[in-house]
Structures are given as structure tokens and as C-alpha cells.
């Protein structure tokens, strides 16, 4: 840095270079570590006819008050005082240029260069920075513009003035003749454009200033020196009344000084005549609320002083003026909104009177008189400047001497900064570039709340003020107890709010008086301020109405809130966290499970097995009795059905015995459900159980059982099954169709038309509930629903009210909700692994007007082999599919397992496997929820019912059996019927998808065809009945499609000649 100085000098014009040199010299003189932009600015200002000074005067909105520049000088002097002094004691060394100043110089250089026309742009070093450019870039420096703002100058405005003068004097740009002189160019009245310093975050400026001085402001405390300086001033003959000017607590120094005076720490020599009997009057606490009464009060004060001086004889009187802002500002809280102007003028008048009165006192008792009256006061730069502007004679009349106070290391966040005022307060008032902005109304209250001084908690509603006072009193009481100095004024009840300030100061002063260490006193103050802040915040957050004058003055409450449960959002979020521990709910439900869920105890499963084994046995036998295939089929089907019903009967009995169920309604529901969804027997019985239980108020969910709504969760892959179950249930419960709402984000089928634009699923649900509070609402694919919907549903389950997207809530009434999801618990997953038992594929298969025909063929001569070969033929393709399906029901295989019956039921009979798993999973599936099942859903619903994956082969087999059985009853035992694989598949899927059940369809469609066929057969040569085989086979597609029916309405009979 140091090395670069000569280089830098070269880039400057002589005037600019000389300014820089002066600045360096000044910094050296002040023993500063670095030369900063502040030094340069001060140097520039120092010249009485200086360019900068003129520009400042011109730019100032209040036109040119001669005192304004004094103010500016004062501010700069304060700012320079603040700068850290260098540790090196060598005063002759030139302080190096700080980074900020270097940046400013570079900026100036860049601007200067830009000033030249493009074609003659010169190499960087050839450009000489002229004084104006230097000034402009110095003004750009944040630290400088901050100081200027303190003196209520806007650096951008000044800059604009200079730039304007530059432009208007453009011919002279390249040759600036006058060094440091006033350039006599016409300066247009300031336009005062909104400069960036208006917008700048004050904290950034501070940071900028910190960077500018190169060192953070954490300077070692120099309070002792300050006190000494103040005392020095007090001993002077002239200008002996010090006003401490600074931003951060000059009061502390005043207090220290007063403490010294009162405790007579000062030797006789130091204060000379004052010595023995001194008296301190704290003016601030004596001040009345109405500023208008101040002059009168001061008169009284005069009498008091007179009395004191008279009585003590040799003593002196110190009047602590406190913060001078009482002279220029209306106490906050009064001047809030209305009538501000009137009061402002009142303040001015009162202030003038006060100044005159005080001046009289000073003249009488001060240096001019007996020399026994001293004034002490504090002010921020701004306040002091205002005093000077409003009361120009004050400085002289009162015999004041301003003492700049170095700011301490800032305690971030503890003391609100003046800078905040800067933006919202001062700058708006004085420059008002934002006048059109409606929120200027905010300024007064905000300013009040941000005030640096401990000005009570103005701007709060009375309630909060009272609470605050209470707490403050408590705090002080505690404090005093601690101090073992229990003075009585601790618990002062409710004072008028203007007294807050006086009170706190008073207390502080008391603490001082009691010659306590500074730290404690600071502590009280700090805590008081914290309290104020706390209550202000509290008031703002609790009583926003009170603060309505502003658009949004709500202040932040950074204090942590008490923990009051989790919000919905959090819960919602938690569900998405895979790591979340099991809910309490789930835990308890697990414990409870053995009790209320005898619905699916393992027992029936065990019982059911023998039933199945018998089936196996029968089937096994049939293999040997070739002649009675039809019978075997029949038996098989009977057994199949029997085992189902017996199982449920068992369950039912069990439940009934436990009096958990209303027998009639259970029976009715179960019957209705099994009729429609016969392939999901277990699910049906589970649904029936749950529904009956819930109706009786025994639902698993619920704290109090009087809620009418019911929530079922259908899990598993069988889409159609779930839908049909819901339909059947709805029919039984509310004798209407269920309202089906798909929550899936994108699913093209069927419901897409319901997806009305602008209508969310939430709204549709809400509407459905509103329309019929008795209905059954099926919410499909909850697993695909978005978080919002899931959250709402969860909330609805908990609270019994459903929020729509407008935030309105609808009571759920007696609505039964059926949620469906595709989740499959882990232990069932293997079943569907690789078995994408493609429901869609099936749908496609059955779709589109397929036809069936019955044809008669001659059986090959050797019956048995032919039958076998037939089986083989049909077996082959199935074997292939078996590979895919992983499960099948095969007559032959089943028969084979007869030998090893032990594990046979597990090994080959899917039926058994299924049932077993089904039972297990109903409990286990819940106990070991797979990752994809949202636990909170499982917890909240009344019951989760598992739908096992559709076993299509079982379906086919049973259809094939029933068709054969029906055929044999018509055609007699002689003729065999053979259902072609493709046809069977289509029938099965048709039945599965459609509304008609297989028996109905057979009676309606197949049986007439059988009769017709029989007729033909009878009419033809009847010789070898048993050698004939009838085939039910696929007959291509017809054109006419009926979308409603999945099954063909007729079966063509083709009696071929054989």
C-alpha cells in the first residue's frame, strides 16, 4: 500500500494530489493508522471556500443555513475521532491509504477515464484524476455518505450538484484551474435524486465504514480520557459546559463524570473553586410532560439553583440536561399521528423559551455571574445539529462546548441504531424522495419504536405498557434487592408513559449515585431496554390492531415461542420423513390389536385349511375316476364355496359370541358384499365386520365414539375388486352409488371428465360431502394424492371436518370414506412380483364386443388319451403363462400333491397360500408396515382392509367348473364341455370387470345356448353321445360394442357336421 503511494500521486491532478497529501498529513497528525476517505472528505471540507462545501450548501434541501456546514464539520470531526489510533508511536510516519480510499481513488480514475471520448481513450496511467472526480468518488464512499447523512446531508444529492456543475462547465473539464477553490459555475438548485444511501442497509454502511478504517470498531475503551476531557472543559473559563455528542451512549460518560463530581473524587485542585459542596440537578426527570410547560419549569429550576447556590455558599450546581432532544423533539407517544405539525411548532416555541430561560440562568450563575453553574448534556449528532439549527443562539448563550464521543464496539442487535432512523425517519422527512410512497405514514411510530434512547415503550397499547411496567418494576425490585439497597421507588405503579424515560434514567442515576460499578448500571439499563423491546414486540404481535396506522409495522418477535404441539404442516412433513418413529397411535393400536381384532385371528385360517385339504383330496380322487369329471368339478366348486362361507361363518360366530357385532346387519352386509365381490371373501368379511363395529361405535379410531363418519382403507392391487366392494357397500349402506373421486395426479381412465378445470379434488370431496352427508365417498389412489390432499384428509379424520380449498370446513356427517391405495405389504409382494397381473391388459382383453360360440366336435376314438391330450394341449400354453404368473391352479398338479399332503397345501394350492397370507397380512400387514404405506393413514382409519392380488387362474378354474356343471345339468353326463382357454379368460375378465356375475350370465346367455345345442344334438344322430365334445370358444369380435356389458349377450351355436 505504502509503495503504491507515489504511483497513486501520479494518477492525480496536482490539486487532487495535494488534497490527498493534506489528508495523509491530517491522518498522521491525528495519529491514525490509515488514511481513509473520511480524512479526505474532512480535508475537502476544511477549506472555507472549498468546492465540496459549496456543493453541500447548494444541495441542502433547507437551502443554505450557514450552520449546516458547521454541523457537517462537526460530524466529520466526530467521525475522525472515532477512528482507531495507530499503535505505532511514530507520528512522523505517513499513515497508509486504506482499502476504502484506494477503492475510491480507483473509482475516480475509472470515472475520469470514462469522461474522455472513446477514440481518444488513453492508457490508464495517463489519466489524471481531477478534483471533482475525487470528490465524487469520495462521496460515494459509504462511510462518508453516512457521516453526511448524520449531518442531514445527502451525499448523492451533493454528488448530483457537483455532477451538474461539471456538466455545465464541461469546457473546463480538462483544465481545472482552481485548486481547492470554489468553481464559479452556475449550480442548479439541487434536484436531490433518491440516492442509494437512502436505500442502503445501515448495517452495510457500518460494515463499509469498518472496512474503510481497516479495523473493526472494537477500539479499546477510552472512557477515562473522555471523562478527563469533560472535566477539562468544566474547568475552563469559557465554553465550559460540555455537551457530549455521539451515537452510542454518551450518557455513560456523563454519569461517570457526575459520579466523580458527587463522590468528590476530584481533588481540590482539579475543580478549584467548586470543590466542597456540589449539587447535581437532573433536569431530565424534572421535565413535565407538556413541553409547553417547560419554560415555567425552568423558571422554578432557576429559583432552585439560586437557593442552592445561596445556601451552600461555596458550592456549585451541575445541571444534568440529559439528552438534548427534549429541546427539539416531541416526546414520542404524543406526536404519533394526528396534529403532529401543531405539536411540532409547540415544541419549537417551548424549546425557544427554554433556551432563553436557560441562557438567562447561565448568564446569571455561569461564568458571567458567580461561575457556579455548570451544564452537562448529551446529544446524538443529529440532535445537536437540530439544536443548532432551531436554536442558533444556544451554543453561545449556554456557553456550550460539544465533545465528540468515540463510539464503543457496537453490540450488535442490542442497541437499535440511528441508521434505522436514517432511512425511515430523517431521510424521508428531510429529503422526502419517497413521498408518493404511501407508507411514509409508518415513519413516526416506527421511529418511535426504534429510538436509540431508552424512551419507554411508546407506541404500545396501554395493556402492554402496563404489563411492561409491571415487569420492569419487578426487575428493578430484584435488582435493588441484589444491591441490598432497597430504595422505595422500585415498585412505582403505573406512571404516565412519558415518564418512562425519566424513570429509567432516574433509576440509573440512582445506581450511579450509589457509587456502584459501571457494569451493574449498564446491566440495569440493558435489561430495561430488553424489557422494553420485549414488550414492544409482544404488543406488536398481540395487538396488531393497535398498530394499524401503518400498513404492516408488525415487528418480529425473535424470542423463541413456547412449544405448543406440532402444527399440521409439521405432521404432514413428518409423514414424509422416512425416519420418523412409529406414531404413538400405531403403537397403541398394535397393543390393542389382539383384542378388538378377533375378526381375523389365526384360528379360522387353521380351520380353513382342512376344508381346502378336503378339496384337494377330492380332486385327487377325481383323477382316478375318469368318468365323473363333471362331478368332480361340481364338488370342487361346492367345496370352494363351502370353505369360504364356512370360514366366514366361523368368524362370524366368534364375533357374535363376543357380542361385538350386530348379527343382522353383519349378515346382511357380508352377504351383499360377497355377492358382488366373491373373489375377495376375506376383504368382504373384514369390511362387513368393521362397518358393523363402527356402526355400533366400536371403531378402532376415535376418542369418543359418537362421530358418524367412517374411514376405511382398501389396500392392495385389485382395482376392480376395491371399486366393486365400495359400490356394494354403498348400495348396502346408503342405497346409492358411491361417489368416486380419484386423487391420482394423472389417470386417464374413466374419471378424467370429472377433473373439472379449476376444481380441485378437495373441492369435489367437499361438494360431495355437502350434497349428501350420508353417502359413501370413495377416494381412489390416496397413495398418489398430493401432500395437500393427504394433509386435508388426515385432518378430516382427526377432526371430523373437511377443509376445502377455500379454507371452509364442512362437517363430515355420516359419510363413509373409502380410501384406496395400491400398496401391498412386503410379505405379499412376492406374490405380485413378476405378476403384473396386468389389470389393464385384462381390461383390454375383455373390452370390445367379443363373441362366443358353442361348437360340437367329435371326440377322438380313444377317449381317455384324447381327453388327456386335450388337457395337455391346454396345459402347454398355460404352463408357459405359469412361468410368468408364478401361481396357478392346475387340476393335475393339485392331484399330484395328494401324496405329499403335508406341505402340499402350501406348495401347490394357491388357494391355500392366498388365504393364509390373507389372514396373516390383515394383521401382520399392519404390524410391519412396508415403507410405502403411510403409517398415519393406517393409524387414523377405522380399518385397513387388504385386497389380495387377484388370482386370475383361480377365477378361471372356478368359472370353467361352473360352466361345466351347468352344462352337464342340461345336456346330461354324456357330453363333455370344454371351455377354450382364450374364451375362458375373456369370460373371467368380463365377469371380473362387469356388473353381472357368472351365474346370472350363464342363466341368461349360456343356458339358452346349451338348450339350443342340446336340441341340435338330439335331433342329429344320437349314436355316440359320449364321443362328442362341446367347445365353448372365442368367436372373434362383433362390430357393435356395448360399453356397459363386458360379456357377450348371446352365444352362437355352431353345430358342425361331424
Amino acid at each position, binding site marked *: 500500500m505504502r509503495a503504491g503511494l507515489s504511483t497513486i500521486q501520479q494518477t492525480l491532478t496536482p490539486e487532487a494530489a495535494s488534497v490527498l497529501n493534506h489528508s495523509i498529513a491530517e491522518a498522521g497528525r491525528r495519529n491514525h493508522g490509515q488514511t481513509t476517505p473520511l480524512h479526505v472528505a474532512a480535508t475537502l471540507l476544511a477549506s472555507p471556500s472549498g468546492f465540496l462545501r459549496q456543493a453541500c450548501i447548494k444541495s441542502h434541501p433547507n437551502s443554505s443555513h450557514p450552520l449546516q456546514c458547521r454541523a457537517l464539520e462537526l460530524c466529520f470531526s466526530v467521525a475522525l475521532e472515532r477512528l482507531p489510533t495507530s499503535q505505532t508511536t511514530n507520528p512522523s510516519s505517513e499513515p497508509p491509504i486504506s482499502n476504502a480510499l484506494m477503492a475510491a481513488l480507483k473509482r475516480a480514475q475509472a470515472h475520469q477515464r470514462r469522461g474522455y471520448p472513446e477514440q481518444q481513450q488513453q492508457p490508464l496511467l495517463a489519466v489524471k484524476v481531477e478534483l471533482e472526480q475525487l470528490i465524487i468518488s469520495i462521496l460515494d464512499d459509504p462511510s462518508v455518505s453516512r457521516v453526511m447523512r448524520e449531518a442531514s446531508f445527502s451525499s448523492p444529492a451533493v454528488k448530483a450538484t457537483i455532477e451538474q456543475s461539471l456538466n455545465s462547465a464541461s469546457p473546463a473539464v480538462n483544465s481545472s484551474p482552481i485548486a481547492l477553490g470554489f468553481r464559479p459555475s452556475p449550480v442548479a438548485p439541487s434536484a436531490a435524486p433518491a440516492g442509494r444511501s437512502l436505500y442502503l442497509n445501515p448495517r452495510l454502511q457500518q460494515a463499509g465504514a469498518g472496512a474503510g478504517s481497516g479495523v473493526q470498531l472494537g477500539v479499546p475503551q477510552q472512557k477515562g480520557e473522555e471523562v478527563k476531557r469533560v472535566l477539562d472543559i468544566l474547568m475552563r473559563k469559557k465554553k465550559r459546559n460540555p455537551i457530549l455528542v455521539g451515537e452510542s451512549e454518551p450518557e455513560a460518560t456523563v454519569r461517570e463524570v457526575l459520579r466523580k463530581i458527587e463522590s468528590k473524587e476530584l481533588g481540590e485542585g482539579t475543580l478549584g473553586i467548586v470543590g466542597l459542596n456540589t449539587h447535581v440537578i437532573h433536569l431530565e426527570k424534572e421535565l413535565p410532560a407538556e413541553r409547553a410547560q417547560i419554560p415555567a419549569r425552568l423558571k422554578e429550576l432557576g429559583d432552585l439553583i439560586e437557593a442552592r447556590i445561596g445556601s451552600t455558599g461555596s458550592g456549585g450546581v451541575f445541571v444534568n440536561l440529559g439528552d438534548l432532544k427534549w429541546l427539539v423533539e416531541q416526546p414520542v407517544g404524543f406526536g404519533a399521528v394526528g396534529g403532529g405539525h401543531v405539536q411540532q411548532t409547540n415544541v419549537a416555541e417551548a424549546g425557544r423559551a427554554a433556551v432563553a430561560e436557560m441562557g438567562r440562568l447561565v448568564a446569571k450563575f455561569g461564568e458571567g455571574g458567580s461561575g457556579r453553574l455548570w451544564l452537562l448534556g448529551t446529544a446524538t449528532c443529529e440532535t445537536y445539529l437540530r439544536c443548532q439549527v432551531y436554536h442558533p443562539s444556544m451554543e453561545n448563550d449556554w456557553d456550550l462546548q460539544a465533545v465528540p464521543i468515540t463510539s464503543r464496539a457496537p453490540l450488535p442487535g442490542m442497541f437499535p441504531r440511528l441508521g434505522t432512523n436514517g432511512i425511515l425517519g430523517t431521510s424521508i422527512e428531510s429529503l422526502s424522495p419517497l413521498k408518493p410512497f404511501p407508507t411514509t405514514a409508518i415513519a413516526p411510530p416506527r421511529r418511535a419504536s426504534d429510538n436509540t434512547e431508552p424512551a419507554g415503550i411508546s407506541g404500545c397499547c396501554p395493556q402492554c405498557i402496563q404489563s411492561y411496567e409491571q415487569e420492569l418494576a419487578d426487575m428493578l425490585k430484584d435488582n435493588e434487592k441484589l444491591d441490598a439497597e432497597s430504595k422505595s421507588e422500585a415498585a412505582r405503579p403505573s406512571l404516565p408513559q412519558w415518564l418512562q424515560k425519566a424513570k429509567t434514567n432516574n433509576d440509573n442515576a440512582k445506581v450511579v449515585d450509589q457509587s456502584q460499578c459501571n457494569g451493574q448500571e449498564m446491566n440495569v439499563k440493558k435489561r430495561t431496554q430488553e424489557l422494553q423491546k420485549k414488550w414492544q414486540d409482544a404488543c406488536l404481535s398481540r395487538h396488531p390492531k393497535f398498530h394499524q396506522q401503518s400498513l404492516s409495522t408488525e415487528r418480529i418477535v425473535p424470542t423463541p415461542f413456547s412449544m405448543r404441539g406440532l402444527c399440521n404442516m409439521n405432521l404432514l412433513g413428518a409423514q414424509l420423513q422416512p425416519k420418523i418413529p412409529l406414531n404413538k397411535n400405531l403403537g397403541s393400536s398394535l397393543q390393542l390389536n389382539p383384542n378388538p381384532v378377533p375378526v381375523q385371528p389365526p384360528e379360522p385360517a387353521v380351520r380353513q385349511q382342512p376344508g381346502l385339504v378336503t378339496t384337494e383330496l377330492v380332486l385327487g380322487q377325481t383323477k382316478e375316476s375318469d368318468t365323473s369329471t363333471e362331478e368332480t368339478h361340481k364338488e370342487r366348486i361346492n367345496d370352494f364355496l363351502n370353505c369360504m362361507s364356512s370360514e366366514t361363518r366361523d368368524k362370524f360366530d366368534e364375533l357374535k359370541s363376543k357380542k361385538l357385532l350386530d348379527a343382522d346387519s353383519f349378515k346382511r352386509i357380508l352377504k351383499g358384499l360377497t355377492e358382488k365381490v366373491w373373489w375377495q371373501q376375506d376383504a368382504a368379511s373384514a369390511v362387513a365386520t368393521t362397518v358393523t363395529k363402527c356402526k355400533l361405535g366400536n371403531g378402532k379410531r376415535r376418542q369418543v365414539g359418537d362421530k358418524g363418519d367412517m374411514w376405511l382403507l382398501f389396500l392392495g392391487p385389485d382395482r376392480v375388486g376395491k371399486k366393486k366392494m365400495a359400490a356394494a357397500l354403498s348400495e348396502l349402506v346408503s342405497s346409492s352409488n358411491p361417489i368416486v373421486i380419484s386423487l391420482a395426479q394423472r389417470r386417464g381412465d374413466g374419471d378424467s371428465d370429472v377433473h373439472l378445470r379449476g376444481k380441485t379434488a378437495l373441492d369435489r370431496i367437499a361438494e360431495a360431502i355437502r350434497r349428501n352427508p350420508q353417502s359413501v365417498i370413495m377416494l381412489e389412489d390416496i397413495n398418489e394424492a398430493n401432500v395437500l390432499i393427504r394433509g386435508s384428509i388426515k385432518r378430516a379424520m382427526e377432526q371430523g371436518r373437511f377443509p376445502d380449498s*377455500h379454507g371452509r370446513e364442512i362437517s363430515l356427517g355420516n359419510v363413509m370414506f373409502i380410501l384406496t391405495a395400491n400398496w401391498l405389504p412386503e410379505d405379499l409382494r412376492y406374490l405380485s412380483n413378476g405378476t403384473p397381473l396386468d389389470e389393464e391388459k385384462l381390461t383390454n382383453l375383455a373390452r370390445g364386443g367379443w363373441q362366443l360360440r358353442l361348437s360340437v366336435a367329435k371326440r377322438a376314438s380313444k377317449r381317455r388319451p384324447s381327453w388327456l391330450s386335450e388337457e395337455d394341449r391346454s396345459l402347454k400354453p398355460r404352463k408357459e403363462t405359469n412361468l410368468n404368473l408364478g401361481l396357478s391352479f392346475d387340476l393335475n398338479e393339485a392331484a399330484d400333491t395328494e401324496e405329499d399332503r403335508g406341505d402340499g397345501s402350501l406348495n401347490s394350492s394357491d388357494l391355500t397360500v392366498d388365504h393364509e397370507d390373507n389372514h396373516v397380512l390383515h394383521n401382520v400387514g399392519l404390524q410391519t408396515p412396508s415403507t410405502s404405506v403411510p403409517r398415519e393413514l393406517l393409524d387414523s382409519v377405522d380399518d385397513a382392509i387388504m385386497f389380495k392380488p387377484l388370482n386370475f387362474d383361480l377365477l378361471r378354474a372356478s368359472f370353467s367348473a361352473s360352466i361345466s356343471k351347468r352344462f352337464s345339468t342340461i345336456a346330461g353326463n354324456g357330453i363333455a364341455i370344454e371351455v377354450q382357454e382364450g374364451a375362458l379368460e375373456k369370460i373371467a375378465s368380463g365377469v371380473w370387470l362387469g356388473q353381472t356375475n357368472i351365474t346370472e350370465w350363464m342363466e341368461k346367455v349360456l343356458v339358452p345356448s346349451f338348450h339350443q345345442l342340446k336340441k341340435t344334438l338330439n335331433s342329429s344322430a344320437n349314436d355316440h353321445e359320449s364321443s362328442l365334445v362341446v367347445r365353448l370358444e372365442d368367436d372373434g369380435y362383433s362390430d357393435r360394442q356395448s360399453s356397459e356389458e363386458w360379456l357377450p349377450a348371446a352365444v352362437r351355436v355352431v353345430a358342425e357336421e361331424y
Partner: protein
Amino acid sequence: MGVVEEAHNVKVVGSGTRFIVLAHGFGTDQSVWKHIVPQLVDEFRVVLYDNMGAGTTNPEYFDFGRYSTLQGYAYDLLAILEELRVSSCIFVGHSVSAMIGTVASISRPDLFTKIIMVSASPRYLNDADYFGGFEQEDLDQLFDAMAANYKAWCSGFAPMAVGGDMESVAVQEFSRTLFNMRPDIALSVLQTIFQSDMRQILSLVTVPCHIIQSKRDLAVPVVVAEYLHQHLGGSSIVELLSSEGHLPQLSSPDTVIPVLLKHIHYDIAT
């Protein structure tokens, strides 16, 4: 680099002649625009910055008083524009920044040629004749939860706001920037946002506004977009996105970026 630029991590990229300013919303930083910036650099000088309080800014600069209203942010924005000597720009504001932009535009309409609002809301609280989507008690709960455990709150809030599950990249991204914020600052910022009521100033806006809104947004109901459209003082246009979530430019850039570009390139027809 100026002090403002540095504090707000201002980045100016691109080689165009016109300025476009991208301002992020709550819980994010300028990285939220990563998908769209490459599309703009050829034509614009893209100004990116971080709002004070974002995880990437120095918490020391966060003045709780200054940022207790949106104006503090608006001043920041103006300070940035001043420092960059931007005399005119297109402003793209997401969420709260859209409102910050409008506030700034009321003060300095000359600086803004148009404002593109993504997921903006002038008020989040419901009112007698206004539906903002939140009740005070919701917010209180939210703030409580936030104060109680910020991390847990973040992991819950992120998927809600983005409208995806915890695993999705967008949610991860948002959680990251969200959790970067200092908890007390985040709480303060969110309170400022949720308690703000900018409805009264909408009529003072003269700059054309393009309102872009997800069709499903936890924070901003669709009706709010309509409200903005009807109450903004200047001309405005609404486009509903098929995307979901409060941060569509992050969660579904494929559908959202083209829409944004369209609105950037074309003005509202008169």
C-alpha cells in the same frame, strides 16, 4: 465491488443490453433461478442477488427492525439497482420478492419496465372478503413449530412448499437453502411475509405485472392470482401453470421456464 453488491452476492451475467433482475423468495437464494439463467444470458444482462436473511448472506447484516416490513427489502433492491446503475429492468420476483418488487416499483416506477410475479400473494391471511389461504391460528402453529425445532420444521415445510416428496431433487434443494437460513432470521422473515398485507398498495402499482401461478400451491390459492389481477393498478395478465407447488421454477422447470420466457419476451398486448 460495492458494499451492497457484496452483501447481496450480486451477480451480473449475460451479454445483452437490457437488464433483467431475478429475485428469489423465502427460503431460497439466487440458485433457485438456475434453470432459467442459461436461457437469458444471450439476450439480457441478468442480475442475480440474494435477499438479506438468505442463508448465503451475512446474518450480521440482518437488521430485524429494517426487515420487519417488506420495505426494507425493497430498499435493498433499489440500492442494488442504484449501485449497478441500472436505469431500467425487467423484474422477475418469486413469492415475496414479487411483492418486494412491486413495493420498489411504486417508489421508483422508472426503474421497472415490467414485473413478473411468480407465486405471489399480497396477503396470506384470510379476511372477511379475501381468501389468502391461511388462518391466524395456522400461522401461529407454524411459527411455534418453527421456533421449536427448525430442522424438523424445514424437513416438513420443504415438501409442502415444493409439492413433492422428500426424495425429489427440488425438495432437497429447497430444504438445503431453507435450512441454510439462521433459524431466528428465518422465523422473522416468515413472520414478516405472512403478516404482510400489501393489498392496499396494489392499486398504486403502475408497472405492468405478469402474474404466474401454479394451479396448486400450498401458500397461494389460485384465487389470489385473480385478486392480484383485479386489484393491480397497472395492466396485468394471469397465467396459470399446470405445475404444482410454490416453487414451480425449481420443481417443474420444463413446463415453467418456457412460460416465464414467454412472459419475459412479450409484453401485455394493449
